[in-house]
């Protein structure tokens, strides 16, 4: 009995940490841009499948997505040439350099057959900018749209990215190597090394975000845009840039989460949506604005998921998503109490 409980606890904690990266992404995006990003889970899929390609020595399809996105970006911002050709040439040059650099880094990594950690870094480099590009295509043109419009848009983004995923990778699942195979017996429980990797990576990501937000001016600007968009504009903070930055960082966190998760469940084109929703349930606990509460939320989600998988595996997802109802009721009473 104790063995089972301990096992479930470790399993739940591992799941929770994976969802924590998702919840972190969702809170970051929502506070800075007011977008409830249903598409956040797609970066999980992109991260996992990109890593799968890289580890098997294939050119990842993500590279073509990235280059296509950069080209589209250059086309959409063609109007810059009329306003200020110097800055426009700098900007377009930057896009070209980014594309060429991504191609070079990917080829180099494939030629060198980097270890898993190295390939993860390369995959991150390919997926994270997609976040900023998607911001440019969807949110940037209508910064003051209502929350519900953004939700609908993000559903559309989610479907489109999934479609592209299906087009590039097909419907087959891909195995992904863990950072380190094997594991260790701790007392009665076997803990895979991958669980440690997940713990360390999640802590590094959260710590990194904290240090960035607290100790750099750009990080403060990101916080400022989240706390008061108008005030940030009055400081001369370009809110479109902080929005794009939030999307980029969130894409990075979610991609990492996918790369850590994939070895446990294999990667496929539709894995992201479920993971994204589970991160969302956790994030809902913090109202998508409160980091610590969201972390608590995802830990509960992770724990409930592993317990229900053990007790009633057919109802696992039903139980996890049912959690949203008490969470929303609790948020509602809390909001009412605060309003008084």
């Amino acid at each position: 009995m104790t063995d089972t409980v301990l096992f479930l606890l470790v399993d739940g904690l591992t799941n929770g940490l994976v969802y924590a990266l998702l919840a972190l992404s969702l809170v970051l995006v929502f506070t800075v841009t007011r977008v409830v990003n249903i598409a956040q889970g797609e970066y999980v899929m992109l991260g996992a499948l990109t890593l799968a390609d890289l580890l098997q020595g294939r050119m990842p399809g993500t590279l073509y997505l990235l280059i296509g996105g950069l080209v589209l970006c250059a086309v959409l911002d063609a109007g810059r040439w009329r306003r200020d050709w110097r800055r426009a040439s700098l900007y377009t040059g930057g896009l070209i350099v980014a594309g060429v650099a991504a191609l070079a880094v990917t080829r180099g990594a494939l030629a060198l057959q980097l270890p898993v950690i190295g390939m993860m870094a390369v995959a991150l480099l390919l997926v994270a900018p997609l976040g900023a590009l998607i911001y440019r295509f969807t949110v940037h043109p209508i910064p003051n749209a209502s929350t519900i419009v953004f939700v609908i848009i993000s559903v559309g983004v989610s479907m489109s990215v999934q479609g592209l995923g299906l087009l590039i990778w097909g419907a087959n699942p891909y195995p992904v190597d863990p950072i380190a195979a094997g594991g260790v017996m701790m007392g009665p429980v076997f803990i895979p090394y991958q669980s440690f990797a997940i713990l360390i990576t999640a802590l590094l990501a959260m710590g990194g975000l904290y240090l960035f937000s607290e100790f750099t001016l750009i990080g403060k600007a990101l916080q400022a845009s989240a706390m008061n968009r108008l005030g940030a504009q009055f400081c001369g903070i370009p809110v479109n840039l902080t929005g794009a930055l939030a999307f980029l960082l969130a894409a990075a966190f979610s991609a990492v989460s996918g790369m850590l998760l994939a070895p446990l469940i294999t990667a496929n084109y539709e894995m992201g949506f479920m993971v994204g929703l589970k991160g969302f349930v956790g994030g809902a606990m913090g109202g998508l604005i409160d980091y610590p509460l969201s972390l608590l939320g995802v830990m509960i989600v992770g724990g409930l998921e592993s317990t229900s998988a053990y007790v009633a595996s057919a109802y696992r997802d039903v139980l996890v998503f049912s959690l949203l109802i008490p969470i929303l009721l609790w948020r509602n009473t809390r909001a009412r109490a605060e309003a008084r």
Partner: protein
Amino acid sequence: MTKLLEIANLTVGYGEAIAIDDISFSVARGEFVTFIGPNGAGKTTLLNSLMGVLQQTSGTVTFGGEDLKALKPEARVARGIVIVPERRELFPGLSVEDHLRLGAFLRRHEGRAKMAAALERIYALLPKLKERRKQLAGTLSGGEQQMVAVGRALMAEPQLLMLDEPSTGLAPRITEEIFEAIDRLKATGMTGIIVEQNAHLALSVADRGFVLEVGNVVASGGAESLRQDPRVLAAYLGAGDRYREAMTGTETIPRAEEEG
């Protein structure tokens, strides 16, 4: 004197409703002008449109010879147009010093030494901010928050400082402190637009004034002459009857006009 800001036939609206109706004025370098008038006259709308957070419907706004129309707020801040907004628009979870540093966000590449010197200048002008430098803005009193808003704006090294209702919700003693700071800024040659409901205060620091009512300039002139104007007396004393008398009265009142 050289004109810093020139506004010709500016109209600003929210959808169908027109909030600023075809107004023209200019501000010379080193000059402080004020817009006074009742709530809803369009004062805040005017400043927000100059800041670029509200689109102008028609007319032209020229700053230092450049048409501002296509410029986003951050580009306007970069050119030295900076606002102390009516609702202060602070970041409740950030410290006083963070606000000041963010005020200089666009000057972040100028180096630590310059940033430190700029901070010291603000602390010299508003000593209370130095005491509170580590405190979160959300925990400050109204007056201190107003000082943070002023300090944050000054960190951008404005060419044109716009103050929107700096006295709102403040105790008279605090208001006095804020206006003393504004006076000192003016003495350093700062150009400014100050919008106030408290016309007496506003006219005490400004060189020239405009009376704004439902989006129209109904009177303008030197600060001293406006102080004697029955319209102005009516507007800031809220004496509606006397105002109506003045409107229908036969005595000559300086009409709104474009002046130097």
